[in-house]
């Protein structure tokens, strides 16, 4: 076995430049794939992390139909206290749930006594919200970053409104709402902090205490519009979804239809489409890499067999078994693919190491994304295995040709 690979290596080195060029092609293909996966993976993780950790949580539960009209923040599609209690029981029974936060969502008019604008408000329990979306407080640019998220009588407002309405922390503003029975109610609040803007939904969201929200709405029961849930690990998301859906489905309305709906973060954020697109691009690059390895190895091996027809005839004449001849050429192709892939992996590790020392920063408006790409061992081994398998497949036909050659014909070849 060792001597077969030894022979293969020497034959590869015989046409040094051709071997190097082909290996370089494979190296570039492997490095391009690994670097794309590493960078895209880091981008995905950062984006998904910022969306789930500062706004959505990992999944949310609403009353059936709420999400469809969430843009209007309807007040009459809330979860009633009985349903809320059942949902809470289900969530507490699930060991992977780390925290959840009940939200009262409402649209309001925001006034600085000179001008009005509209604002989307979330009435929250500061401690529960903090546990569910721990990165929310990192978005506080002005105001107290370390205390409770909001206090009674205070409002966290988005940067967009702070700038547009020219209000600062400590200013008094008025929030006016129309409740579900049509009556108008207004209340003075102090600006407690300003939230950094984010792209996507949530850029106009402000936060007040859940008790203040219920006061404003003159809500008699402890209704809830949304329950955001955080898991211990996002990797368990689909398993938890399956388990939690069972008790949630048992919560029925008067028509005996499910009264609640569960949505994953990916169903609530348009960024999920970007993730899907990145995954698709990764697939394309993977196909490209396979094609590069396949075509380049096959090309070299077809040439190698053609150049060495007389040598093949000689080896066959002196008694080399067809299987052995096949092994000689197969191992040559495998070695070529292996060499190119290992070089590609080495380059990828070097570049990824460099990108972590000198990080790449992308600006999305005011948002900054710093890439910290990492190469997952499983991905590296997968690409290595793929290159080896594809090199083997590419050498199969040329090696088969060599093994099947008639020694007399081969020896007479000029």
């Amino acid at each position, binding site marked *: 076995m060792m001597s077969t690979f030894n022979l293969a290596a020497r034959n590869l080195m*015989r046409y040094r430049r051709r071997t190097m060029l082909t290996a370089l092609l494979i190296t570039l293909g492997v490095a391009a794939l690994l670097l794309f996966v590493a960078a895209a993976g880091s981008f995905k993780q950062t984006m998904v992390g910022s969306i789930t950790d500062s706004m959505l949580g990992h999944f949310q539960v609403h009353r059936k139909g709420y999400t469809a009209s969430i843009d209007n923040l309807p007040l009459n599609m809330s979860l009633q206290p009985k349903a809320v209690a059942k949902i809470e029981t289900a969530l507490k029974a699930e060991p992977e749930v780390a925290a959840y936060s009940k939200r009262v969502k409402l649209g309001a008019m925001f006034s600085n006594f000179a001008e009005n604008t509209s604002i989307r408000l979330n009435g929250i329990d500061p401690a529960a919200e903090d546990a569910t979306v721990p990165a929310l407080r990192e978005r506080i640019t002005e105001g107290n970053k370390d205390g409770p998220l909001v206090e009674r009588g205070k409002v966290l407002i988005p940067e967009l409104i702070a700038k547009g309405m020219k209000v600062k922390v400590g200013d008094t503003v008025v929030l006016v709402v129309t409740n579900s029975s049509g009556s108008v109610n207004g209340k003075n609040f102090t600006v407690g902090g300003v939230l950094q803007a984010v792209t996507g939904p949530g850029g106009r969201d402000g936060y007040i205490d859940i008790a203040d929200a219920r006061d404003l709405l003159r809500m008699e029961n402890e209704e809830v519009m949304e329950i955001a849930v955080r898991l211990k690990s996002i990797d368990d998301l689909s398993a938890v979804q399956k388990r939690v859906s069972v008790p949630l489905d048992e919560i029925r309305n008067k028509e005996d239809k499910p009264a609640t709906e569960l949505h994953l973060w990916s169903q609530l954020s348009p960024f999920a489409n970007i993730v899907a697109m990145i995954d698709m691009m990764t697939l394309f690059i993977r196909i490209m890499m396979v094609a590069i390895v396949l075509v380049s190895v096959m090309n070299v091996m077809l040439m190698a067999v053609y150049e060495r027809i007389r*040598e093949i005839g*000689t080896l066959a004449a*002196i*008694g*080399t*078994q067809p299987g052995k001849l096949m092994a000689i050429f197969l191992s040559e192709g495998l070695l070529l693919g292996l060499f190119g892939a290992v070089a590609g992996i080495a380059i990828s590790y070097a570049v990824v190491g460099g990108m972590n020392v000198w990080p790449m920063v992308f600006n999305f408006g005011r948002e900054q994304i710093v890439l910290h790409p990492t190469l997952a061992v499983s991905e590296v081994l997968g690409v290595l295995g793929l290159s080896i398998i594809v090199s083997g497949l590419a050498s199969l036909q040329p090696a088969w040709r060599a093994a099947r050659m008639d020694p007399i014909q081969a*020896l007479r070849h000029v």
Partner: protein
Amino acid sequence: MALIQATNITKNYRVGDLDVPALKGISFAIGEGAFAAFVGPSGSGKSTLLNLLGCLDHPSSGTLTVHGRDVSTLSRNEAARFRGEHLGFVFQDFNLVPVLSAYENIEYPLLMVRGWSPEKRRERVMKMIDAVGMTEQERPDQMSGGQKQRVAVARALVGEPRLVLADEPTANLDHDTAYRILNLMKTMRDDFGTSFIFSTHDPKIMNEAELTFVLEDGRLQTEGGVA
């Protein structure tokens, strides 16, 4: 028991729809330790016959036994195994593996065909290198034609076959070198008892053989017996 027993063998090549006869009924026997030559003009069937003796091809009819075995119907893999175990080959163009040194070329049959252990291989290869008067390090592209053929003779003999077949082994060598190679082969025959069968169309070379068969147009002119 003869080393080779050929009885009425024929060989037709199929060219398009036609059967072209290359051997037209040949019978002969060659004994152990022979140093035999097939001679004849171009196209007389020397290569065709040597290919049959070397189990590289099947006769169209007749029977052929080599080393006591009927080789006229061996399968591809059986033929390869038989060649690897009992036959050695020397070629007109030397046909050394270019990426292997002299030592490695001689070692090849033991390693890749026979699967001998390293110690056994080393001992045997060194013996052959000595016997043909070569050094082990040289690469084929640094060797003269005569040196290459010496290495080729060593490679043919390294597995101690009963028979070495050589189709025009001296055609690409100058006159003096050709004689030296023939003498080397004869010495090897004397030292190891291996039979040599070669072909040539050079009358002077032909005289070195102890047993000569003349082929013409696919037939033997002088029927040879056991030498």
